[in-house]
Structure formats: C-alpha cells, structure tokens
C-alpha cells in the first residue's frame, strides 16, 4: 500500500482513540463535579481540561472554570483544535484519504458517526445533553473498531490502524496517570497514606477501569494498587503493559508482511524488555513521573520509527 495511505490510516485511528479518551475523561469529570461542592467542582474542571492537554487554549478564552464552559470547549469549540468536532473532522478526512485501505463498513461507521456528532454538536450543549454527546463519541469508537474487527482483512492496513490505536492509548494512559498523580500526591510521603478515594476513582473512570479494578481488588483502593493496575496489569486493555504487548504484535505482523524488521521493531523490543523487567516497587523507587516520562518518550520514538520504516512521508 502507499506510504501516504498508511499514514492516513495510522492517524485516523490515533485521533479516534484520542477523541474517545477525551470523552472518557469528560465523563469522569462530570461525575466527580456532580458529587462535589462548587469550589472543588471548579478544581475538577481545571483538572479535566489540563489532563486533556487543553489548558492554554481554554484559559485564552475563559477566565473561570465552569462545567458548561469546559464541556462545550472540549466538545465543540471550533477554536480548540483538540475539540471533539475538530478531531472528528480530521478523523473523517483521514478516512477519506485512506478510503481504499478500509472496508466499506469501517468507512460508513466513521461517516455516520461524523454526521451524528456534527448534528448533535451544532448547538451549545446543555447539562441534559452532555451525557448523550459523550455516549455518542464512545459509540463512534466502538462502531469503528467493531466494523474493523468484523470486516477488515488482516493485512498491513489493519496493523497500521491498530498501531495508531495502541500508540495513542499508551500515551493517553501515561498522561492521565502522570497528571493525576502529581495532583494527588504533592509529595512522596503521601504514597500509601489514606487518600481521597473519590479522586482515585476519577483516575480509574478516566480509563474506564473502575469496574475491572474493583473486581480484581475487591474494592480496596490504594495508590500502589491502582498504579500497578494501570501500568503492569496486562489483562486490562488500557494498561501500559497491554498497549505495549498489542503494539508489539502489530509491529511483528508488519515486519512479517514486509519480510524485514525495521528500527520500530528494535525500539519495541527495547521498550518491552525494560517494562517487563520492572516491578511496581522499582517504579516507585525511580519515581513514577520519571518512569512515565521515559516511557512516553520511547512510545513517541516508536511512532516516529514506524513512520520512517514504512515511508509515511518520504
């Protein structure tokens, strides 16, 4: 396939993952804000916006943090390049670009979701509709992934798409953990102390991991357990270990299809060896922030190597 098409496909699925993660984040924030007094609610919205990486854009426009401002900025602000509407335009543009590398079912799933989202978000979103908007974005991801699983040939297109998904997801989980961790644990002495369980609940909800975590840990919420779950538990589909293992398989498949390994495979192997040798104690010893920084950098390095190995741009 064409390098340009592979690039379109890769980014189409990165953006789709990003917009889905933004929706999860918003969902968690919404729930949190509802159970708080107005002062902490404002704090919560500030945190949602900054975790979504949209702080500077938001503050350039708004002096205060309110729910209705925050979700409208995240969902539909045309001045916000990371808003759901802007992202979805980009997803669809990439889908059009890679139109003959995806099945008709995947294209229709994206195109229909784009139409629905555009309609719903054509007007300011009030409190009664924000839940609907979030659900619609999540459903868009579910539809596209379902259509892909059920209708696409397992050729390089499939693996480029999946690589985009897992690169983005790895980045997203790392970022949520990093930002929330700082917010929640201003100093190391807090580790292991009794915490605001509501805040940790938000972290889990942001990655749709609250239910899974409760089942595994019988309702016992502590920082170490949560970090271990989100970083090392390879049964949870949004953990770093899971994303890395899935990405490794996609890259191995690409190498097999092309009959050669590239730099991306090599970097992948290094990252893999590193992660699988670490225990949660060692991660806390080196500092979670330091650990996350290193792994986000290596993830970005792998993404760049994929683009180079498969001639996305030149």
């Amino acid at each position: 396939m064409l390098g340009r098409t592979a690039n379109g496909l890769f980014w189409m699925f990165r953006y789709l993952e990003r917009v889905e993660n933004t929706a999860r984040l918003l969902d968690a924030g919404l729930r949190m804000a509802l159970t708080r007094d107005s002062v902490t609610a404002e704090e919560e919205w500030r945190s949602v916006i900054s975790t979504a990486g949209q702080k500077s854009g938001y503050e350039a426009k708004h002096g205060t943090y309110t729910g209705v401002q925050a979700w409208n900025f995240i969902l539909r602000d045309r001045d916000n390049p990371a808003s759901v509407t802007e992202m979805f335009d980009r997803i669809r543009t990439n889908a059009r670009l890679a139109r003959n590398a995806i099945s008709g079912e995947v294209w229709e799933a994206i195109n229909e979701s784009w139409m629905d989202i555009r309609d719903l978000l054509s007007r300011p979103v009030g409190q009664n509709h924000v839940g609907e908007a979030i659900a619609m974005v999540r459903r868009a991801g579910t539809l596209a992934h379902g259509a892909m699983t059920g209708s696409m040939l397992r050729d390089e297109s499939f693996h480029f798409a999946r690589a985009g998904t897992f690169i983005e997801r790895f980045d997203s989980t790392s970022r949520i953990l990093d930002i929330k961790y700082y917010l929640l644990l201003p100093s190391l002495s807090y580790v292991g102390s009794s915490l605001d369980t509501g805040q940790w609940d938000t972290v889990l909800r942001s990655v749709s991991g609250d239910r899974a975590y409760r089942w595994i840990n019988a309702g016992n919420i502590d920082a170490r357990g949560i970090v271990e779950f989100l970083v090392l538990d390879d049964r949870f589909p949004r953990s770093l270990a899971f994303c890395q293992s899935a990405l490794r398989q996609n890259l191995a498949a690409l190498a097999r299809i092309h009959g050669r390994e590239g730099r991306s495979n090599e970097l992948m192997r290094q990252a893999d060896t590193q992660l699988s040798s670490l225990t949660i104690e060692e991660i806390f010893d080196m500092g979670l922030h330091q650990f996350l920084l290193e792994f986000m950098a290596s993830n970005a390095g792998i993404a760049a190597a994929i683009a180079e190995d498969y001639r996305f741009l030149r």
Partner: protein
Amino acid sequence: MSEPAANFDEMRTAQGAVRPAYEGYCNWFDEQETRLLHRKNSEAEKNFRRTGITFNVYGEDEAEERLIPFDMVPRIIDGGEWRRVTRGIEQRVKALNAFMHDLYHRQEIIRAGRVPERLFRGNEAWLPNMVGFTPPGGIYTHIVGIDLVRTGPDEFFVLEDNARTPSGVSYMLENRETMMAMFPELFTRVPVETVSDYPRRLAKSLAACAPPGTRGKPVVAVLTPGIYNSAYFEHAFLADQMGAELVEGTDLRVVDGKVKMRTTSGYRTVDVIYRRVDDEFLDPLTFNSSSVLGVPGIMDVYRAGNVTIANAPGTGVCDDKAIYSFMPEIVEFYTGEKPLLPNVQTWRCSEKDSLAYVLDNLSELVVKEVHGSGGYGMLIGPTSTRKEVADFRKKIEAKPENYIAQPTLALSTCPVFTKSGLAPRHVDLRPFVLVSPDKIDITPGGLTRVAMKKGSLVVNSSQGGGTKDTWVLKE
C-alpha cells in the same frame, strides 16, 4: 417558459399509453402504496449520505458536501433500441481515436480539406508534445462518455463527446445499488442488464493497454488531485472497486525511466495510470511549472513508452465544441460510413453566414462556448430574459469563433417522483465506453441526468440536475 411542444416521453405515448419497455415497471408501480414510496425516497437520500456519495462545493465559507439529487423512477431502454445505439457509439469512438492519431501525425483529414487547420491551432487542449508519438495500443481515449439526447422513437443525437475525463460513472453504479436495495422485487420481475461489473471491466480494459514492456500483471493506479477535488469520491470509489492504488502526484516519482509510487516497502513501478487530473497538472516540467499536483518527468517516461496514461494527454481536443461540429465529417472520413448517430444541428459562429443566422435567432437557440463545460457559459435563448440575450449577443460579437449555436431541442422527458406523484422532466444519457486494443466495451445504460425543475433543459449536476438509474432490458 412553456413546456416544449410535443416532446417525446420515455414512459408514455402522446395518447397516454405505456410504452412496452415500461410495462413491467408500471405494473409494479401501480401495485405500490404511495406512502411507502415516499418513505423509500427519503431512505435513498440517507443511504447516499451514509455511504458518502457526495461532491464538494466550495463557496465562500467552508467546504460543503452536497448530494446529487437521485430520482427513483428508472429510465428504461429497450434492448433492441440499445443495440442500435451501441453500434453508433462504437463507430463514433473508433473515429475519435483515429482522428486523434491523425491530428498528432500526418493530419490527413486537414490535407484532404475536410476540416480546417484553425480547428486545433490555438486550441489549448491540442498538445505539441504529443506530435509524432503513438500511445501504447494506439489508443488516445480509453474511457469515453458520449452524451446523448433523444427526441423521438429511435431518434438519438450526440450532444457532446467527453473524450478527456468523463465523470459520473460512480453514480451509475451507486444508483443501481440503491435501487436494488430499495426495491429488490422489482429486479426479480423486470430483466435488467447488469452494470455492476463496470469496475472489473475497467480494470481489465486498462490492463490491456499496459505498455509492451510490462512484466507480469500490470499495476494500475488512479491518479487524483486529492480529497478536495469535487469528484474525489468517484476517484476513491473506482480505485477501491478495481483494487488499484489511489495515488496523488506526491506519491509518484520517476526512477530509472519508470513511474514509481511510494509504498510502505519502497518505490514500486506503475504501468497504467488512470488519471483524473487535467493535462496541465500531469508534469510540471512539461506543462504548468507552478503545479504541485503533477509528477516531474512523467511525460518523458510516457514518450519512451514505459507507462500508459489514460486518457492520453491531448485528448481534450475532442471535447471542443467546434470539433464536435465536424464530427459527421470526421466519422465519415475514418470509417468510410455515414454516422449512425447524428449530431445536433450546429452553427459555427466563426463562419459569417452562420453568425448572421445565430444573431438573428438568438432567442430561439442554445449558444455554447466552444471550450466550455458543465453547463456554464451558455445561453438558452427561450428561457432567457431580453437583457440576458442582449448581453450574450455582445459576447458573441466580440469573439464569434468562441461560440457555436444549436436549436433548442425538444429533449425527451421521463417521469420523476414528486410530492404530488409522477411528473415529466427532461433527461439526457451518458453511456460509458471502455476502449482497449482488444475491444470497445459499452456498459449497458449509463448515467441518466435529469433536470429536476419543471420545464428546465439543464441537466448538469453543477446546476441542480439530478440522476436516475438507467435500465437496458435484456432481450
């Protein structure tokens, strides 16, 4: 404007009787509940939106995607009638290819005094780079759209030749898909020739035109200007249906005397390029040096016989309406036969007597720019205001050689489904023709374009025209 008197209706005779070709359909139609039909009609639109069969329109604000209106009453052509039409099309397409070969070689037709030299001198679509060069298989126009209009039983006229890059074939295919999805039982009752194998036939026809040095199975690619082009949907659709790569200029590069595309595993040779970009955007080294759409050096590869470009550069010369006016002579000159499909009577304003006639009868005539297309830059005398006619007169007087004129034809009508039931609207027909050294392959039917406004004669989608599924009945 008043309805043109006594035009031919495709479905019914002047006495109101259903024509034989429409019997099966009308029987079915009479059994349907109107409410259900209305519901199906809105379903069809949803279906087009969902699958993204849209064309882009760029206004002052942001890009907008529009649907071409679809009408669910098919245009039906009797099998025998179609057979006669295809013979005429075949003859015309052969003549077009022979004419282009001659134009770029010895120009016998000019030496013989059958067409004047000024026809292509000064015609920008005529490319000096093509002189003396014969494309692989000797074919210039591989994919042709011959626009036909009808005025009576067995009276078809050619309105226009689209030899450069005819578009609209994706609508032909999607209209049929939509009809089959909406009314499956209709297709079990009426025997309709299939059109859905067009992409396969296109792939085969293009592969058969590969350069002689091609090794193995020819690699075909569709060259598009990109996602912002109004016909991008069609480009992507055809590439997808053929299993061919959809490339842009930036994906291609000339390496070792071949055209290659950048794939995920390096540069791979392309043997046949089905290009949907204009000549001037093909090669910035040869044509438009400011173009970012083209492939530097591709014309050298082409002239060395190492790649096929379909349609060949320089075929646009035949889309010229001044050349059109000579088609009867051209057909006769190269085939030795009288044209089976007549032209619409045409006055060339470049000729003194014709000009005088045209200026005297402007309010009765249709006047077109010789290089115009898409229904732009034309005057339809009978539907224009006095001021419009006067303004157009000035344009013609300033540059007569830029215009041709034709009588306002009583185009046939075919019913469309409206809120208040069936109502006649004017239609034309664009059959799609594939040309390879092996054969001339005409898909049964084509694209029927329909003027959605009552009385209107303009069927172009850029001017609000719609489309219909077109049926050729099995004999």
